[in-house]
């Protein structure tokens, strides 16, 4: 079985580039992950 997660991540309003996402995944392909572990993080805008 598989779970596919699709989500909108926080964006920063940047006057030069328009909306810019500051979300970063902290996992990569092939990693083993467990329930409750972080998938990705963002900084407070």
């Amino acid at each position, binding site marked *: *079985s*598989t*779970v*596919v*997660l*699709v*989500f*909108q*991540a*926080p*964006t920063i309003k940047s006057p030069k580039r*328009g*909306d*810019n*996402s500051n*979300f970063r*995944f902290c*996992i*990569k*392909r*092939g*990693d*083993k*992950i*467990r*329930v*409750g*572990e*972080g*998938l*990705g*993080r*963002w*900084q*407070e805008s």
Partner: protein
Amino acid sequence: TSFLRKLQTNPQVRASFSGGSNNSQGNTFLLPGATFATLLMLGALHARRMYDDRKVEEAREKGIEIEFKPDAKASFLRLLPLRSISRIWGFMTSVEYPVWMRPYVYKAWARAFHSNLEEAALPLGEYASLREFFVRTLKQGSRPIDHDPHCLVSPVDGIVLRVGELKGVGAKIEQVKGFSYSVSSLLGSSSFLPMIEEGDMHEQCGEQESTPTEKTKKSWWSISLASPRVRDTATARPVKGLYYCVIYLKPGNYHRIHSPVDWNVLVRRHFSGRLFPLNERATRTIRNLYVENERVVLEGMWQEGYLAMAAVGATNIGSIELVIEPELRTNRQERSYYIQSLQKKESMNSRCRFFEKYHVGAFNMG
């Protein structure tokens, strides 16, 4: 008796009845010969599969990405009644074992699929059937939760297959190198996925609009070749900051699904489909694997916007259960596509709290 005695003593008579000494020898070895040939064939197939898997593993270690390549086995799987097989498996695994037998069965399962039995919340003797054991809960504290308010956590145990940002026209997720599927086909064509029509995107980016001639060409192609459904997704792009993550659960993994954030589930969709295996080999040999398989999609909103979670069933694990909608049954005999608005149904608590004690759902056998 005299006839049998004659047969034993007279080699000529014996030969005339058995059709010659060579045939007699052939009949004697016919059954063991067939068995041996079958075993040899199975052994050869298994050895070839092991060899292929090893080659794939070696290539991956070297950083070479395996490309999509359909094979005969994938075509053969399409002929098998995998939904019925899964239902039979579900029925067989829901049979209750005698208490003395339970630890042996579950330990054998754990050994075969590398499950950690120490994490199980209950003693092994308390799981009446393999089906019940499969969706076992965990001991408190066995999964430390990241409580960082600026972090999105994993809803399941498993292996990360794909992560990335949805970009470009059609918003596609790569199943494997050389084959991608669109997110709209996974979540449903009427999903709330935040997309921008390409025209709006151009206006947003301040790009120059295409010339009238180009516009005419585009409409000609789209009218000639594309269906309206394809055209809709093909002309839209996802908004900035839309991400995806694909996590594969092995048979030995913890099979409950939790809420990755605090969110409101607005719609639940159930897509009745096939039940192909979802292992690594299947992803690189079966086209549209996630789009064709039975699945339940939850769509909703969290503090940062859109959130959707698709639970895709696999062979023998096609029974997807939801806590917020206990009456939902998947992998039934009749096929259906069913949408349920969770907002309108007041009896349902559609608000899934971040990682609360209660899970959102589970994958079960059947």
